[in-house]
């Protein structure tokens, strides 16, 4: 039995985008507050969904509360439109809304993702929805929620800095690869979801709106367009991103994209491909020209 069979019956219909209008309004109200206070975590109800918490329900509820019949939807997981989680979320949203979907990030009005932002920077009018596992950047250093909220309210971030300091002492540089703490609008420290360091610059002073939802932790937060998002860095140790120098995508040849390492099933040979499959496809199909490529 498919989801469509469940939803399609005349007596058994879900509301548009699954959530009832009251539930959507509750999420939207939290989102308005989140946009008004960039980087501040706003609690929301996060009711049960047909997808388990921890599988993107935060982002899903944000998408469900915002999506309209005219929206064009793109959903990715690890940068890929075709991975299991993305496919399932897409199926649910299409079945309950009937909206058009796309793999081309330029076409999308709503783009839901977990680990990546598209290689092509998003533009005005587009909304990025990120699924967040751990919204609290201070959880690393403080287990108490009461205490972390006080720390945010008072801008008491010395302990976050101490953890970076210890990291540099032990490893020579900050070793966090994802969830790298950022100062938003020079006020709150935010965890930018599990996107890599590579993508952080696309949150800073962006054209698009970024909304972040954590379903299990029941928090939403936001980075409005043209808001500063600065990774924490010491004055003398600049923030760095992942290093792919000397590597190129085995499919499209790009040398300026975030690369995944994959292994050939037969030979076991490793190779690198673009993590953003939509971008890689566009280049491979000749729809766009790679910005920088090893072989043009």
């Amino acid at each position, binding site marked *: 039995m498919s989801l469509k069979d469940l939803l399609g019956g005349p007596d058994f219909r879900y509301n548009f985008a699954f959530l009832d209008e009251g539930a959507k309004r509750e999420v939207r109200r939290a989102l308005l507050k989140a946009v008004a206070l960039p980087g501040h975590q706003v609690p929301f109800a996060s009711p049960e969904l047909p997808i388990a918490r921890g599988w993107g329900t935060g982002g899903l509820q944000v998408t469900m509360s915002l999506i309209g019949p005219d929206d064009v939807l793109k959903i990715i997981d690890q940068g890929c439109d075709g991975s299991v989680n993305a496919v399932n979320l897409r199926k649910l949203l299409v079945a309950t809304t009937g909206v058009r979907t796309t793999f081309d990030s330029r076409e999308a009005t709503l783009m839901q993702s977990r680990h990546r932002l598209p290689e092509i920077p998003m533009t005005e009018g587009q909304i990025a929805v990120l699924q967040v596992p751990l919204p609290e950047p201070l959880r690393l250093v403080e287990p108490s929620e009461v205490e972390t909220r006080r720390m945010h309210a*008072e*801008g*008491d971030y010395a302990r976050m800095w101490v*953890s970076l*300091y210890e990291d*540099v*002492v032990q490893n020579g540089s900050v070793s966090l690869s994802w969830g790298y703490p950022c100062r938003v609008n020079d006020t709150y420290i935010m965890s930018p979801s599990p996107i890599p360091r590579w993508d952080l610059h696309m949150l800073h002073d962006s054209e698009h709106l970024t909304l972040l939802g954590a379903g299990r932790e029941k928090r939403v937060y936001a980075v409005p367009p043209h808001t500063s998002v600065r990774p924490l860095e010491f004055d*003398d140790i600049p923030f760095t991103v992942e290093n792919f120098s000397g590597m190129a995508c085995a499919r499209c040849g790009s040398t300026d994209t975030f690369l995944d390492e994959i292994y050939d099933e037969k030979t076991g040979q490793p190779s690198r491909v673009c993590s953003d499959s939509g971008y890689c496809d566009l280049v491979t199909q000749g729809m766009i020209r790679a910005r920088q490529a090893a072989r043009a």
Partner: protein
Amino acid sequence: MRETVLLAATNLGKTYGPGCHECGNLTGPDKGTNICPRCGTVVALRGVTFELHEGEILGIVGESGSGKSTLVQCIYFDQQATEGQLSLKGYEEQENVLHIPRTEKRKIRSRLMGMVYQNPLRGLRMDITSGANVAEKLLEAEIFHFARIRARTAELLASTEIPSAYTDTFPRALSGGMQQRIQIAKALANNPPLVLLDEVTSGLDVSVQARVLDLIRELQRERGISMLVVSHDMGVIRLLADRTLVLKDGCVVEDGLTDQILEDPQHPYSQLLVHSTL
């Protein structure tokens, strides 16, 4: 005589409990209790007034429960004083710093004060390295230059006689005396004009006590820091303090030059204290 007042407390009071209009009359040194018999309120501090001058060490003595620790904790904003006024040179925005926002209080704490607690568990975090504990104070003061923090931390730990090998050791692996010295290094990190010492040497054996006290005296002379030294040990007070307050049941019963109090105590309680410990 030193002229500049660094810290001035006026009528400082701290109570725990509902309080009633008789609390003031029914507690205090002459009543022999700090618990109000009518409402059960603990009057930990009442009408404490003193001035601390620049470069001076003021001793605070008294028995357990006399309000010594409460006093320094109110000054360090660990506790909120319920009454009175506190003013601090270096923070001129408000005459009374007791009711400023917590963000402002933290600025004062990180830039103008240092604290050494009796129990290192309160002053240090045992799950980060000794170096990071000291660095925390610098980071609180928004110094974000890694190499400078690292150098300053090393310098501070060296000045408190912590071998450099222990910089990256967790404080829980170190001895009590070593932990106290890390606390001292942390308290001095931002060259604060005021350092509060709450029973720093209690719980240390006598030889270690002597070394820690020597260290405090040396650092104080070198840097001209003002200090509030809380102790129940008259020996510590004799060694460190220029002037001394004697606290009993939350009230100051005597204040004066340390030598004077030790040689010629006026209040019956001070007499008892001096004679029973010396």
